[in-house]
């Protein structure tokens, strides 16, 4: 079985960003970039499926600038077999990403696409769902556990009330949640081998997709500074404050 794993290049999760002075976005210049942590979980899951013998080939895809190659290399070092870079400069919105991925799915015919549930840069949480809709495939989002049997994938999902298990017919879309697995550190020999694995370079136009943004960012600001809290003496006082000061009850 072939698996497609899209991976996004984002700001390293350890770093803090500053809003640009003109409020047009955040300033990423000279900051260290890395693979989106949810995408790492997706790669890890695909590699584990391969190690179990369920999956035969893992294709890592990234849509982004030239440097997104590094993100693909990281996926290759973790165990993906080959990469596809769709070179796009500037912002690409989830819908454009989903459309490009649809094109790749049509060309590659994977049985399973495993994506991160969201990217930590804009936290959109849309791409997997949009891709499922465009392809007309079933989706299992926020995966906590995945089991693949011959023509089905069983996905245990993290939902508000706890866990929900769904069985999907393949081909299907799965998006990963935080607790699905703990991604491995790439081993040195695998990093060295990854250097020799192929990466195809494509353009959005190859899939007939126009990536021009459809949304306009009006203004980006820092979240308001948190005010200091107060201690309450009784539950009654708490309820009173929630009702009369915070106005949430």
């Amino acid at each position: 079985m072939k698996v497609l794993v899209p991976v996004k290049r984002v700001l390293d999760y350890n770093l803090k960003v500053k809003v640009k002075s003109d409020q047009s976005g955040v300033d990423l210049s000279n900051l260290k970039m890395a693979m989106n942590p949810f995408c790492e979980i997706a790669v890890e899951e695909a590699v584990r499926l391969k190690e179990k013998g369920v999956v035969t080939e893992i294709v890592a895809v990234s849509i982004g600038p030239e440097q997104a190659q590094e993100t693909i290399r990281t996926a290759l070092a973790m165990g993906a077999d080959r990469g596809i870079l769709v070179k796009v400069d500037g912002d690409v919105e989830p819908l454009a990403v989903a459309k490009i991925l649809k094109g790749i799915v049509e060309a590659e015919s994977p049985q399973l696409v495993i994506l991160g549930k969201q990217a930590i840069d804009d936290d959109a949480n849309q791409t997997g769902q949009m891709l499922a809709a465009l392809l007309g495939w079933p989706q299992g989002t926020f995966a906590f556990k995945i089991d693949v049997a011959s023509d089905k994938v069983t996905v245990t999902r993290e939902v508000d009330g706890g866990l929900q298990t769904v069985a999907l017919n393949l081909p299907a879309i799965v998006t990963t949640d935080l607790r699905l697995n703990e991604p491995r550190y790439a081993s040195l020999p695998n990093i060295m081998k990854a250097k020799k694995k192929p990466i195809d370079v494509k353009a959005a136009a190859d899939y007939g997709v126009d990536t021009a943004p459809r949304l306009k960012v009006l203004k980006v600001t820092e979240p308001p500074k948190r005010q200091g809290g107060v201690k309450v003496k009784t539950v009654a006082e708490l309820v009173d404050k929630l009702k009369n000061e915070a106005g949430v009850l």
Partner: protein
Amino acid sequence: MPTYKAPVREFMFLYRNVLHVDRHSNLPAFAEAPLDLVEQILGEGAKFCENVLQPLNAVGDHEGCKRSPDGSVTTPTGFKDAYRQLVDGGWPALGADPVYGGQGLPHVVSLAWNEMVSSANMAFGMYPGLSHGAYEAIHHHGSDAQKDMYLPKLVTGEWTGTMNLTEPHCGTDLGLLRTKAVPQGDGSYKISGQKIFISAGEHDLAENIIHLVIARIEGAPAGTKGISLFIVPKFLVNADGSLGARNGVVCGKIEEKMGIHGNATCVMQYEDAVGHLIGEPNKGLAVMFVMMNEARLGVGLQGVAQAEGAYQAALAFAKDRRQGRSLTGPKEPDQPADSILVHPDVRRMLMDIKSVTEGGRAFLFWTALYGDLLHKSPDPAVREKAGDYMALMTPVLKGFLTDRGYANATNCQQIYGGHGYIEEWGMSQFVRDARIAQIYEGANGIQALDLVGRKLAANGGRAVFTFFNEIDAFIADNADDAQMKPFIDALTSSKAQLQDGTMWLMQNGMSNFDNAGAASHDYLHLFGLTALTYMWALMVKASFDGKKGKPDPFFDAKIAVGRHYIDRVLPDAAAHLAKLKTGAGTVMALPADAF
């Protein structure tokens, strides 16, 4: 508790902008390591060091190693699992020969990996570190059969290695050695004697330990001319590579010590242990000396690594801790006090540490690159210069960077105030761990003697004169660059001081050796300070060039820190010059019985 972020950006700056490592991509090893791959390797290695090794640093310090009555040794909780992950990750193979399963990457790349390991957990890092030393000795001097038998498993890390030199009565002066080797007639020897202070001598991390032991073959000459080097495995190795009988070597005791508690420092008892000679009889010291340069460079690295780890902690604390107000008025009036980062005296310490750590790292990497060229360059002239520099710079790197590394770790502790003295905060560990680097692998006093007694004079002073010429050429090349002027001026005067000190030694050290001995420490520091001036000039020039391409606060910071170095650290050089020129004078003035 301190945390650690590996300075991968600093490493890549040195490789890309300062040393231009890609210039050597025609050479073997370098061809395998284009810089974007190196960056990826270090990025992945960084995660391992930050998330697996560093959290065990304090654990190792608190728990230490434990010896059982049967002589077995247990490492601190978590070390065994981390070591298995290290081996599974293939990291010990980084710089090793591909013929024996290594990845064959250049030494200058291994160095960055070693720094990360050492900053994250120095005591842990010594286990693979000593294995690499044993690997080097066997790789350079072992027979083909020995290489085939021992190297593959040392390379993977399945086996570890040790260096057994020291005995109770014999540390610096190896000629006093007593451990004896009796030939068995079948080419093997029986080794008997006691070794002390043996790092990683016994532990539970690997299935076998390959001890390299110096001993005197029965009937060999006294002194250093009768020293031979032997391989003594903990478990004998069968011809098919499987493990055989337990050899006659046990750990009799582990030392309680000031720092590096996670590394077992062992008394090793050898009793008719089977040993195999490496190289020729009585040539053991020559074999050891080949490895010494790299091993000493590795200890110099520990000085930088401890200072870096301590600096990261001290900086985080300085940003967080609020005491007093800025002398020029409150910087955060809405807070009850400013962070201590506003205080010039705190800044002084941070800048001193930062400038010496970054300069010292550059000096290490610059020298290590010559180490690579020494082995890899097809050009005999390059190899000669590389060999000269490796020999000359090694004692300076070891002595200067570990003295400064310890002082810097202490200043990081100072920034924590009283909390620095309290174990819970983790700062005392940096100080205690850094301390050993000044002592082992040749005490720093011995490094200074090696520099003035052996390295300076070798080949008529060829190495040091080549260095002076290189600095002169750099000064001439950049004389018209207005931005570089303060750095060129500093380099000009600092080189003149070093030349002055060198001349003084040449004129006064030969007539009275005590003059050389008494001057040696200050000469070593003068040399280190001058070398770092050159490193800062190189880094600042690279930063000006880098800025032209793309503005980046990284480059501006480099230039500012370089300026701090020449204004506030380099002036120490004058004091060292003045002191060294007094020679044996007051130092030897008191008759011994007046003490």
